[in-house]
């Protein structure tokens, strides 16, 4: 159907605007449902049985989370008479809503659907799932951030970072690795959302930019497994270099942009006296760093004894220049100076204070 793509994109845009503009729980819930329904054809685009399976799993998980959201709204309305998300004062409603949003985003212990769904879909659709689809739940979390329970978010964030890193240790499928990486990155957003919601939004922006660059590059190289990354440098050195920069930025290594949100988050956690949480987040992020470095090592750092003649890349030409990927990757590197600037600003604030 020729009009399906504009309709889907228009629906996604309109529902995202509704998230940004409204605070009424029912309206937000309607937008969430429409958002979920609109993305399903994108997930099942190829009609492969695994893609249909992925879209079914995604729909069931999101529908269950949406049911919990409307349940929490109904409960809050019954207890307090308010339907505004910012007035969610009933404790049970708050906890149910928080857990429902964690299901939507894919945090531990509701993370099992993320790698399975991502494995069944194309890389281009995966970009939508890992960035755009997280806007709605994160906006809701941003709105309820003053009322959110820090103990709950810190436990979930720490577990997410740990479990995502642990699961990625012996994973060779690249899409599953990106799914687990997304879970780990979401943990950093969730852990700080109560005390610094704007920092959580900044983390999300940098995460979206970097993961889009990574997934677009992987899509360009048509790689689904680490094995095909091994020979990518000889086939397309520039694209592989771009991938390397994106991966290192995702892992949070300075001086790339991905380091900034992690550093600021740790700063904020220490300022809030959550030293143990900060320490646990740092230690568990080492597991994620391991598989990012493994991807980097296999793609850019070594030339293993594999031939360059592969079935995957034999017929697809890999253009060496791509405007979108280059733009996104530049966004991960042009913030090189930002870390120095932030440090200078912070020092200045301390000296003035």
């Amino acid at each position, binding site marked *: 159907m020729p009009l399906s793509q504009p309709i889907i994109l228009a629906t996604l845009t309109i529902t995202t605007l509704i998230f940004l503009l409204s605070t009424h729980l029912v309206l937000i819930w309607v937008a969430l449902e429409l958002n979920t329904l609109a993305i399903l054809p994108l997930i099942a685009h190829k009609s492969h*049985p*695994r893609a*249909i*399976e992925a879209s*079914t799993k995604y729909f069931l998980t999101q529908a269950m989370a949406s049911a919990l959201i409307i349940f929490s709204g109904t409960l809050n309305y019954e207890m307090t008479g308010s339907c505004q998300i910012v007035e969610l004062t009933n404790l049970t409603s708050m906890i149910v809503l928080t857990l429902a949003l964690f299901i939507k985003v894919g945090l531990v212990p509701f993370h099992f659907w993320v790698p399975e769904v991502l494995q069944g879909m194309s890389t281009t659709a995966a970009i939508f799932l890992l960035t755009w689809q997280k806007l709605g739940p994160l906006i809701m979390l941003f709105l309820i951030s003053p009322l959110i329970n820090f103990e709950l978010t810190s436990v979930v964030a720490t577990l997410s970072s740990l479990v995502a890193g642990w699961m990625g240790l012996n994973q060779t*499928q690249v899409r599953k690795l990106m799914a687990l990486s997304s879970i780990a990155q979401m943990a950093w957003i969730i852990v700080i959302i109560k005390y610094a919601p704007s920092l959580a939004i900044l983390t999300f922006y940098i995460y979206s930019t970097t993961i889009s660059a990574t997934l677009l590059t992987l899509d360009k190289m048509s790689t689904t*497994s680490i094995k095909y990354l091994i020979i990518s440098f000889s086939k397309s050195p520039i694209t592989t270099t771009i991938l390397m920069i994106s991966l290192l930025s995702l892992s949070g290594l300075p001086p790339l942009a991905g380091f900034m949100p992690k550093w600021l988050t740790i700063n904020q956690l220490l300022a809030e006296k959550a030293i143990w949480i900060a320490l646990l987040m740092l230690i568990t992020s080492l597991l994620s760093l391991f598989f990012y470095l493994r991807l980097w090592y296999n793609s850019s750092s070594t030339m*293993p004894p594999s*031939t360059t003649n592969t079935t995957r890349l034999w*017929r697809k030409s890999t253009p060496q220049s791509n405007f979108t990927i280059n733009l996104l990757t530049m966004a991960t590197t042009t913030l090189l100076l930002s870390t120095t600037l932030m440090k200078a600003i912070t020092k200045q604030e301390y000296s003035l204070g």
Partner: protein
Amino acid sequence: MAVAFKLLASARPLRECQRHKVLHSLLGPLVTNHISKMYSSYRRPGISPDDTPVWKKIDFSTEKAVNGVKKHFKLLKSEIAEHVTSYDGQPLHVHLWEETRVVWKFHSQKDLDKWIASSDTEIGGKSEAYLKLGKNNQSALFYGTLNTEVPRDGETKYSGYCGFKAKPRLGVFNRKKYYDWTNFNSLHLRVRGDGRPWMINIFTDPYFSHQKDDMYHYFMFTRGGPYWEEITIPFSKFFLCSQGRVQDRQFPLWLDKINTIGFTLGDQAHGPFQLEIDFIGLLMDRAHTEEFAYEQYERNTKF
């Protein structure tokens, strides 16, 4: 192949009461021994339904429970260590760089116990099929007699098949474990057949029950004679079937979640058969560049 699951009978009072038939279908699992039909159940015509309650079929043995707990926790410990140090039982660099792999070999009874043989006796047919170790415990021998006589039960129309398949791998606490064959593009077997055409079935175990009958098949034509032959079948050749029917819309076989592989003989030739297998392995054939053998034409075109 006939499905082995049987439907347990409902409690007698509810079954006889017409008014409760609707209620029973909704509340079956709660009020009776009725197990919902997750998979299609087949009961041979003429055989009475099994009225035995579910709880009577379970072996409540303390010793079995304790041994089971010990075994699974030991497996859990080794699985955790394996998760960190290796991938699918071998170091990651070996997994990434390997171009060939032997998945199944038949050197002992333990290897043979990973396979299960079956035939049309499940539906009342008269074929016989046996699986045993070959000479000097170096191969597996699947032999028997194919009988195309249709069972006289008034329902069955076709008969005459034999097959054997690998049992699904189970991890700790009997979780399903899948094979990851993404590094390879061909199935490589060393067999000694009898000239009959066999069908290789690969099952990828879909998550939802509406796809439970989906399976990928391809043919294996054997030569008769005393000499071994090495057969290489690219995975791009496998076609999708559901309940044995070839699907109009074809999709390539995804190799990241393979559950089992099986071999079936159903060539409608009445008589003895024999297939000897030395090993079943995987191969990365660099010369094979085909991604999928079956072209898909656009249906419902604009004009």
